């Protein structure tokens, strides 16, 4: 591959000048759509983050009066969960970074179906509007992000808010489904000559496995949501005991989607962390094939463990044992990944740039979240821990710290490639350390609250829980301030005049995106690159 300086200028301009509307509203370019997804994730993350700040302020003191109505509280927790999952983590990792870098990494000129790609994005925006309507209309959707009936059926949640929230899942689901089809078609068919599956960068493997998970899980969610909408509006009784239905059926369907969804959020994060760790250790990834197939195994086993979310629901004793054992098995491929990251660093020449700090933070905190996951997988212990703050701590350690740390790692790693300007190193590190302290202070005390028996989704609690709740709320304020530092970093990036080299990370960065200019030109590969 050789791209001359002259070509750079030509590529950067694109073939013709596009108007703003043509470029951003009718985009068919994977990088522009990736950018749109990242903007969506930014907005979603801000809205979800503000909701979490409101909740932590309410919980700062017992008998607090910021939110006095249980319906408002339930609407906020529901919207926080849905928005953070579908409009922050997923668009950032899959739609955003996946769109931006999967075609580049495999040497493809664009995604397989560019117009489908655009459609995926705008479905997601429509879904976001719907989920906000679900938050603000009427009394809001107050069933929690798991949307268990009968609480969200027509009798207990009258009004249109719940319908909007349910439809928002349809829209986000279609968006994800089309995106998944696009990624699978792209990765399987559009790899450059020489880019065999077993040479493909781990981020592409991660997105490929994620896409298959989406392809198989989203239709089940769509089915469950459709049945709920039918129950609500057309008098069916899929989940209505008085009509011969069963609310437990919904729990099975929801978690058959919901558990793979957890891996949908974390597998792309694994991919990003692999790249960052390898780059800043200046070493190729250790045990590449083990890393790739560990993700495949996690994806596969992730489909057969769903009922560990239902250990205290209607489920037989022997099923509990099966689901416990199957769940624990996931610890093995996850262990392969963690130890391989450490082995990648072993013998390396590690530079502690901001993306590497986020990656190291990710590995450590994800291991803590994984350890509490092993605890929760024990059905016998889950009888005590189910739905209490120990669980809240666990899933925030793997998501709020796992997935979010990976998103920030990817942001600092690739922002130079995406924008053409480097982030300020000092402020990046300030952002990392304040966020690291903030989220740990927020979520670690929740383990204690859970052990003491505080249930989740409570706007007010017994006075004995006040101490750790106060600490947790202080932590959330620190995380909030840290996010302001992040805003400043973004401002610095976009006001920077600095020009960046193609490969600004040096010898450790070996994937194809580092062979093209920074920022990446509008059309990446005029000629098909040959991978040796």
């Amino acid at each position, binding site marked *: 591959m050789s791209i001359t300086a002259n070509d750079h200028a030509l590529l950067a301009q694109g073939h013709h000048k596009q108007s703003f509307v043509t470029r951003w509203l009718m985009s068919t370019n994977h990088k522009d759509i990736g950018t749109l997804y990242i903007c969506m994730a930014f907005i979603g993350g801000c809205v979800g983050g503000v909701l979490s700040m409101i909740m932590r302020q309410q919980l700062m003191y*017992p*008998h607090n009066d910021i939110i006095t109505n*249980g*319906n408002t*509280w*339930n609407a906020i927790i529901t919207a926080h969960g849905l928005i953070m999952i579908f409009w922050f983590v997923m668009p950032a990792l899959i739609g955003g970074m996946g769109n931006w870098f999967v075609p580049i990494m495999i040497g493809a000129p664009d995604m397989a179906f560019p117009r489908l790609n655009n459609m995926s994005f705008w479905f997601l925006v429509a879904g976001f509007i719907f989920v906000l309507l679900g938050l603000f209309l009427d009394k809001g959707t*107050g069933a929690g992000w798991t949307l*268990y009936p*009968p*609480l969200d059926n027509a009798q*207990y949640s009258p009004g249109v808010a719940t319908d909007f929230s349910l439809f928002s899942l349809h829209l986000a689901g279609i968006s994800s489904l089309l995106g998944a089809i696009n990624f699978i078609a792209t990765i399987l068919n559009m790899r450059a000559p020489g880019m065999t599956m077993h040479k493909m960068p781990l981020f592409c493997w991660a997105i490929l496995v994620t896409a298959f998970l989406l392809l198989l899980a989203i239709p089940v969610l769509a089915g469950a949501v459709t049945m709920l909408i039918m129950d609500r509006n057309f008098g069916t009784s899929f989940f209505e*005991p008085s009509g011969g239905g069963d609310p*437990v059926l919904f729990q099975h369907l929801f978690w058959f989607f919901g558990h793979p969804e957890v891996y949908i959020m974390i597998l792309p994060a694994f991919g990003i962390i692999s790249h960052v760790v390898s780059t800043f250790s200046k*070493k190729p990834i*250790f*045990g*590449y094939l083990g890393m790739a197939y560990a993700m495949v195994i996690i994806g596969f086993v992730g489909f057969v463990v769903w009922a560990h979310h239902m250990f*205290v*629901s209607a489920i037989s*004793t022997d099923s*509990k*044992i099966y689901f*416990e054992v199957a769940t*624990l098995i996931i*610890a*093995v491929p996850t*262990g*392969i990944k963690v130890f391989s990251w450490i*082995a990648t*660093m*072993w*013998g*390396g*020449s*590690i530079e*502690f740039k901001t993306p590497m700090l986020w990656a*190291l933070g990710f*590995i*450590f905190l994800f*291991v803590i979240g994984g350890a*509490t996951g*092993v*605890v929760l997988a*024990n*059905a*016998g*212990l889950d*009888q*005590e821990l189910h*739905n*209490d703050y120990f669980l809240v701590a666990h899933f925030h350690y793997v998501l709020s710290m796992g997935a979010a740390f990976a998103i920030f790692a990817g942001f600092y790693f690739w922002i130079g490639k995406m924008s053409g300007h480097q982030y300020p190193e000092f402020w990046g590190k300030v952002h990392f350390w304040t966020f690291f302290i903030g989220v740990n202070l927020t979520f670690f005390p929740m383990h204690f609250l859970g*052990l*003491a*028996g505080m*249930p*989740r*989704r409570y706007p*007010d609690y017994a*006075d*004995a829980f006040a101490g750790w709740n106060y600490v947790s709320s202080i932590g959330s304020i620190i995380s909030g301030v840290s996010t302001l530092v992040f805003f400043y970093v973004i401002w610095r990036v976009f006001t920077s005049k600095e020009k960046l080299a193609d490969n600004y990370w040096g010898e450790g960065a070996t994937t194809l995106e580092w062979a093209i200019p920074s920022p990446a030109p509008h059309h990446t590969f005029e000629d098909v690159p040959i991978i040796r």
Partner: protein
Amino acid sequence: MNNNAGRSIMKRRDVSALRLTGLLVLTAIFLVQAHGAWAQSSAPNPTAAANQYVDAPHDWQMWFPAAGSPMQARIDWLMKYVLWIMAGVVGFVALLMGYVMVRFRASRNPKASKTTHNTLIEIVWIVVPCLILVAIIVPSINLIYYEADTGNPYMTVTVTGHQWYWEYKYNSVPGLDYTSYMIPDDEIKPGEIRRLSVDHPMVLPVGKKIRFVITSADVLHGFYLPSLGVQKYAIPGTELTSWTTITKPGTYYGQCNQICGLGHDSMPIEIKAVPMKDYLAWTKQALANYTQNDARPPLSSPMPRNQLADATP
């Protein structure tokens, strides 16, 4: 020496007996004068024994509540077992990361190695985690079977979740079926716990195996008793069972642990565990004082107090 000591004890006993008699006489006079109070306290409170030990959450609590049942004791043990193993894993990973970050930082190790494979170590980090999992799974499965063993109970209480109160039906005491509401924040009296105390607690005998049949009349609820190690969803149209044996007279608390609408945080569970004799006395008193719940109280907010249960005999 011995005799002297014995005599002095006798003396002390005499003195305290005198004082006690005096106190009793004074109390009797007081009670006779305060006629209304006398009438009320003539029926002794059969759940008084439960007030001596209160197993409620405490400030800055960092571990499970004190185990009130053998099941919770087992959960506590397994939790410590699993958590220590996992703490070992986290500590090991932290040590490795710490070592790598110090030993292989760029300033100390400027030239990176190119090692990308080591079959032995890759096998080790598959096999060792598998062995750790086996060590966890064996005691864990035992606990699952123990928790599931609801057979041969001394008595059964049918627990029904409602928006937003609990209903307790004693299957072995025909007609004993009453509701239990949280005491609203502005009506909390000294000795009660805000957000945990209820107007009519569930009363159970200690040392007997009690089976809970848990269901719901409307939406999902969660019957969650952390100090007894019991938790099950209350699902409309489905009956789930769990069990407990309370070892010590005392007051135990629980809360609704599955989102159920605007009063989700306002339907705690309070259990008074008393000796069998007191329990039997309580069932008589309760049967006389609580009328059977055959109508649903209004669901409006603010929360209605338990008027059905408080109806005159």
